[in-house]
């Protein structure tokens, strides 16, 4: 997984915002060991460039003009397994970092942190390590600790209806939307949510959503 640090590292930038690409270019230009080998504004051109420019690492935004970055990540893993992928996104890492990693990315950095942390992230990934923010890594580790105890068993404790609600939360639906779909009151869904949280021993709504999303992704 590690890359030879002595030679120049080729980086493919996949982002639909020209100014972001420009900024990345400027930052990479300041690093003597890093080279921009190509820039793509869409998944389609990214796949084309992967063939021609032979990058060592791809910087991928999750929101692209012609599709989601997650799809691109999965495809890149298939067509060019050697290319390391670092996700650079405006999206909340709490919601998408784990998904990105699961899809095959080696790191996830939010754009606000990228201004002074991008090069470090690139280097971490090139060094063969996974990169997420400190806060994110802590959260994942905590949950993994829970997971090892009795996560599956806890899910088993959910009633069918609770499981149904849990799955809909995982698909990103709001409480009101779930209530509407199941034709019950918001209050009822809130009760389900509360039950699910206590059964799965989750701290708050964010935790619940995160876990639900992660679980739904696994399906």
């Amino acid at each position, binding site marked *: 997984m590690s890359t030879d640090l002595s030679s120049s590292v080729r980086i493919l930038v996949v982002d639909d915002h020209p*100014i972001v690409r420009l*900024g990345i270019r*400027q930052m990479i*230009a*300041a690093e003597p060991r890093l080279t921009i080998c190509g820039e793509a504004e869409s998944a389609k051109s990214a796949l084309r460039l992967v063939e021609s420019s032979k990058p060592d690492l791809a910087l991928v935004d999750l929101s692209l003009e012609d599709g989601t970055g997650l799809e691109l990540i999965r495809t890149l893993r298939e067509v060019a397994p050697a290319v390391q992928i670092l996700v650079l996104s*405006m999206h909340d890492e709490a919601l998408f970092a784990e998904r990105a990693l699961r899809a095959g990315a080696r790191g996830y950095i939010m754009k606000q942190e990228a*201004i002074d942390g991008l090069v470090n992230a690139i280097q971490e990934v090139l060094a063969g390590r996974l990169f997420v923010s400190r806060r994110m890594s802590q959260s994942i580790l905590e949950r993994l600790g829970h997971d090892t105890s009795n996560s599956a068993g806890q899910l088993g404790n959910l009633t069918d209806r609770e499981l149904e609600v849990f799955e809909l939360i995982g698909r990103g639906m709001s409480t009101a939307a779930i209530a509407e779909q199941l034709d019950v*009151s918001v*209050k009822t869904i*809130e009760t389900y949510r509360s039950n699910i949280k206590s059964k799965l021993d989750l701290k708050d709504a964010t935790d619940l959503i995160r876990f639900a999303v992660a679980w739904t992704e696994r399906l």
Partner: protein
Amino acid sequence: VSPAALVTSAGRIIRLYGAMDPFLDPPAGTPSRREASSAGKTLKRMFLAALTLAVRQNREIAPKVPHRNMHGHRVTLRLTVRPVGSAAAADRHWLMVFEELPARGTRAKKLGRLQQLRSDLRSTKPAERQVEEMETINQELNTLNEQLEDKVRALTAVNDDLANLLVASDVASVFLDTDLRIKRFTTGAAQLLNLLLTDIDQPVAHLASDLVGADFVEYAREVLETGAPIERPALGPGGQKYFLRVLPYRAADQTMQGVVLTLFNVTALTTIERELRDTKEQLSADLRRMSRLHEVSTGLVREADLRELLDDILAAAIEITEADMGLIQLVEPPGFLTIAAQHGFAKPFLDFFRQVRLDTDNACGAAIAGRRRLVVEDVITGPVFEGASCLNILRTARVRALQSTPLMGRAGQFVGLLSTHFRTRHHFTDSERQWLDLLARQAADLIVRRQTEQQLVEAQGELEHRVVDRTKWLTLMHDVTRAINDAPSWDEGLRQVLHRICETEHWQIGLIYLVDRDNPDGIAPVISWFDDKRYRPFHEASEGQRFTHRQSLPGRVYADGIPLWLNEPEQLIELLPTRREAATATGLRAAAALPIRFGRDVISVLELFSDRAHTPNEVLANLMNDVCVQIGKVLEREHSKAQLSDLIWREQQGLLHTLHDSLGQTLTGLGMLATGLSQRLRVADVGAVESATQIAHLAQQALAEVRLLSRNLFPLEIETESFLAALEQLALTTTLVHNVPVQVLGHPSEALRDGVVATQLYRIVQEALTNAVKHAHARTIAIQFGGEPGLTSVSVIDDGVGIQNAGDKHDGAGLGIMKYRASSIGGVLTVEAGTGGGTVVTCTVRGISPQALPYKNRPRRRQR
């Protein structure tokens, strides 16, 4: 006096006067029983010829006729034939007077007479003086003779008059002398008593008379004895009635010289008299009836009860027809005849006829159908009731005869029957029928007038009632509309409506049920009102209730959509199974539940309770329909507000996405550019590196702010337990982003009911903060919790320019949305000036959390 004869035109002799024998021929046959009578004698042919001539000419004639007198001397007669009476020529009588004229002598006779006169002269010559005396005497004699002749003429005239009078008069009179012999009689008497001329001078006792009760002899004697007249009735053989008057016959010197019997035929008179008496009686009866009718008529205009007036009419009918019993039946209800007044009947009869169908096939039915009077002069033998079911009833009631007169209105409508009944057979006279008609006319007019008056009164009452109802309705609708429009929230509006309805219609407790959010098939009380604390237990018992379809009173109305009114304690107990004890304890006696519709669906139920009976009130039910239209409008308005709010929300979302995606990306790019720049300048220009690094830092900071803002505007759904933390985060963000310190003071006094309430409160605070910062230019802001048991309030207090001075129209929509948010969670939003300047925006949420807007969670239900 010259002899005379009274004869008929045919020459039959009626009476003879004086020595008439020389002028008559002897009778042809054997002499009659009465030898002296003139029967059979006839006038000599010569005289008959004169009569015939007079009759033919029909006037008086006086021819001179030769005649040989009783001495055998030839003489000349003056025969006067004079008509008597004024009858036609053929029937009149004639008076024939035979007057011998002085004979004109023969020469020898004259000579003889001359010689005699000469001898007389010789014998008288010597006494010349004697001659003078004789002449004087002769003159006196002549004078006397003339006087006598005058007298005779006068007497003859009187005699003629008398004779004519007697003939002309129809009166039968017989003159008797003191010996009771017939002296004279009139033609009428001759005919009545078969008197003949020969009966003259015969005793009256010999008179054979057919008259009954006319003892002439006895009466005549009595009169002769007493001198006083006698008057007696008598009867003729043919039933004629006579009046016999016996008067004394007095001469000029007042001496009684006999009696006069006079017989008057009074048969016609008696008949007339009887008829007169009958007429008088009839008139008297009619007068009585007329008075009675008048009395009734006068009575009818007075302000009395109809039944009383009908009794009067019936009494008059009974009196007029002289009946024993009577009945007035009226057409009421339509299609039936009902007894309205009766006299003299017992229960079985009244029970049988109390209410009779108009189309009943009986005698009365026939009268009604024919619109004619039914007259039965004999119930038992007559054909009308033969085999009829009511015959026995009539018999038991001892009705033998009856009449039923239909009472017809002026417009020809049948309004009833006026009947009178008789215990005996009864013949109805025309007069009775006419009077009955008059009475029936009066009765019918009265009934129609009373019915019309009644209808008028009813119509007026109805009208007044409707005006009152309408006024009440208008007032209530006005109040309801105003309450709904002015209320800060729809549920507050409904509460006021409920209050108003309870107050106006006198209900003590009112509840409005809406769809239960936890169970869309059921309903739960959302808004309630009660007027006295003694109803609190029942109110509290109601508050926690949830009813599914058809369950309990509200559930049933919710399911059926039909109003229910309960006035019986058993009904209350049956339909309030879960609140039975509370209802009994608070003394509730009546309940009503009315559906509230939105379009065709029942969306809500209004439940009312009272401690007194309430009759089903259609007005209230209709009113609720109208109230529902108003409520529907409010809901529609709220719906529009919701749509507007959603639209604004989506716009904000779009803006923030743009901000997040574009500005964020741009800031990222700029930051990266600056970082790159600073690295490239690191060796060349230390000052420039510093600037570049600063730019990168600023970009990063800006990016963080954008992120913070978007996160605050799109917080993950806020839950009740994280509400305070979310508000604290919001305060922090506002402090950081706008550089205005925001403090959170206190905490919610009660746990919020659900996340919806928390989210809406959060957004209200958020909007208030934005207003405070942007429009009020606040320097410090406080988010303060407050409230009392059952209420949670959160206020945003700023020290800005105040809402009136903000001078910005933008908050109009913002304020509207805040109000909408507050009302959607059953809260109330107030915006006031702060005590030390600035603005205080407060949202207060009730502890009993209301439902969401009814239509939002309305279950999809089958269309009725």
